[in-house]
């Protein structure tokens, strides 16, 4: 076979193994299933575009009928959901989810206590986005975070080891791998290490997945911890935001798309989507999710649930895509980008930031979204990202009228865009 073919059987075997271990990071392919399937919906998502059209027509009809229905106050129609502009005097219209990735968020708040700037970041965002109901309103704020912020997470073991231990194993294995690869070690050894790296990575993923289940079982729901403490995060007036302490924020074990949506559906009327790095990945998925075919179903589910007046989705800088783009542009590996983004002030790091700006410019074109970089911020992990202020005017929104996502915003955030512009702030957040 060797004489006839370019590769030996062993080599082909090796190539197949390598190929199938390749990270398919380039796909945004993470469709939350349970929310849609387990609520009784039998329609396949491929019909969602049709559903979108139906919902859109229905909403349009409802909007047309609203003045008529409002006039007939003696004959309210319970079958028609109330999707009109929320009345800020009604308590249920003032419940708000404000999500921040808690893994970074918790550290940001530690910093926030010491630096006025960081405090402004969060409290300013709260004031702008949440404080619009005025001083007499009642606010509920939640910070949704990643699995890493879950109680006991760092003690949780999968097959006898904690996440930190796996991280250490992984580092060791990766160092060995590089060493062997650079020193022309036997192929079989390198292959074994490659397997080991994949196995460890898999263990870490499984640990997180199992931990979520463990957490849910222990605390009732994945946000059970939050449920039992949420009164701590009720605010009487926007001024209170200036005095937010770390203890006021109760961490969610996860900020998965499902959880956030479930929170919005079951408990809250306004959802501000999470912001920071790790969560950004979730939200990028969510954003695409809303923009694509599944969004109408979510919209419908939200309409059918407790009043949900607005979901403000955010187009977060997709840090993974950015890192990939940066890695390509710099001709280095994804891992190197990650390693060098932490506390490194080198030339490499400056280059990286320039690429980041280019990346944002690309994003700007994609989103037709105005933004400016106010200044750079160093987060507590030592990673620096441009501090972005982003606005989206009503006119701009109208330009998106054919986009399902914007149709959604137009219908549900009407009150939000009656001002000249809708704006928000975030450490590494672009939102509209």
């Amino acid at each position, binding site marked *: 076979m060797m004489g006839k073919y370019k590769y030996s059987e062993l080599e082909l075997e090796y190539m*197949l193994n390598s190929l199938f271990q390749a990270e398919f990071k*380039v*796909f945004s*392919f993470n469709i939350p299933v349970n929310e849609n399937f387990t609520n009784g919906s039998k329609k396949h998502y491929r019909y969602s575009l049709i559903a979108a059209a139906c919902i859109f027509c229905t909403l349009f009809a409802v909007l047309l009928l609203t003045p008529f229905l409002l006039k007939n106050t003696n004959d309210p129609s319970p079958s028609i959901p109330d999707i009109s502009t929320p009345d800020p005097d009604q308590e249920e219209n003032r419940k708000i989810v404000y999500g921040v990735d808690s893994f970074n968020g918790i550290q940001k708040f530690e910093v926030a206590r010491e630096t006025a700037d960081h405090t402004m970041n969060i409290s300013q965002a709260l004031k702008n986005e949440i404080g619009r109901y005025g001083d007499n309103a009642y606010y509920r704020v939640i910070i949704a975070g990643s699995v890493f912020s879950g109680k006991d997470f760092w003690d949780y073991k999968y097959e006898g080891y904690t996440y930190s231990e796996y991280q250490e194993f992984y580092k060791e294995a990766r160092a060995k791998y590089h060493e062997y690869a650079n020193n022309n070690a036997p192929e079989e050894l390198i292959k074994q290490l490659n397997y080991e*790296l994949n196995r460890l990575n898999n263990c870490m993923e499984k640990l997180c997945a199992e931990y979520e289940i463990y957490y849910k079982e222990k605390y009732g729901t994945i946000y059970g911890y939050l449920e039992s403490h949420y009164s701590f995060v009720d605010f009487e007036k926007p001024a209170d935001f200036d005095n937010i302490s770390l203890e006021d924020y109760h961490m969610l074990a996860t900020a998965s798309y499902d959880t956030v949506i479930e929170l919005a559906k079951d408990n809250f009327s306004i959802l501000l989507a999470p912001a920071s790095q790790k969560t950004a990945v979730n939200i990028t998925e969510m954003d695409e999710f809303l923009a694509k075919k599944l969004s109408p179903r979510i919209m419908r589910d939200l309409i059918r649930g407790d009043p949900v007046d607005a979901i403000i989705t955010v187009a977060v800088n997709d840090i993974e895509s950015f890192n990939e783009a940066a890695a390509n542009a710099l001709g280095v590996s994804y891992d190197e980008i990650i390693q060098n983004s932490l506390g490194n002030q080198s030339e490499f790091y400056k280059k990286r930031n320039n690429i980041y700006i280019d990346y944002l410019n690309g994003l700007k074109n994609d989103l037709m979204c105005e933004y400016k970089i106010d200044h750079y911020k160093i987060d507590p992990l030592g990673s620096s990202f441009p501090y972005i202020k982003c606005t989206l005017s009503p006119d701009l929104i109208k330009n998106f009228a054919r986009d399902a996502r914007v149709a959604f915003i137009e219908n549900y955030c009407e009150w939000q865009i009656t001002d000249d512009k809708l704006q928000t702030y975030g450490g590494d957040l672009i939102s509209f």
Partner: protein
Amino acid sequence: MAVIVIHRETINKKIKLYEKDLSKLCIYLCRNTTEAEDLYQETWLKVIRNFHKYDIDRPFEKWLYSICINTFKNMRKTSARKHEFLFSTKEKEDICISSIPHQDIPQEDYYRLYEAISKLPHKHKVVVVLRYFKDYSEKDVAEILKIPVGTVKSRLNKAKKLLFEELK
């Protein structure tokens, strides 16, 4: 419907545990994201609808994958989208291929291999994907596909021969 309600929690857990692996498998099988998304959704739909038939003594993962493979087979019968290109851009393809850890073998050969796998006859492709994607043994593959181990071996051999031909 009742079944869906009863098993909701369990199914949610399973989805959480296997969503990544399943989505990868779908991508490997389908070679275009639209079809892969369809397959992913269809598979979970079938899991939910048939969960009461699931034998708890059998590993869930294998049951899930066998549903996925069967769904894939059915989709192939009806789908006209058989040769769409998986990656929407060349850059994405490059990112994927360049993420292959060891680069002693020329990258273009990985491209060729990737193309060659996609050209394999369906039954051979499925065996290759299962064998290398999850590192399943031939026995495991046989169990998932509900075919004899000998058939798996012969299909694997045939698949490799075809791949050799493409790579020579």
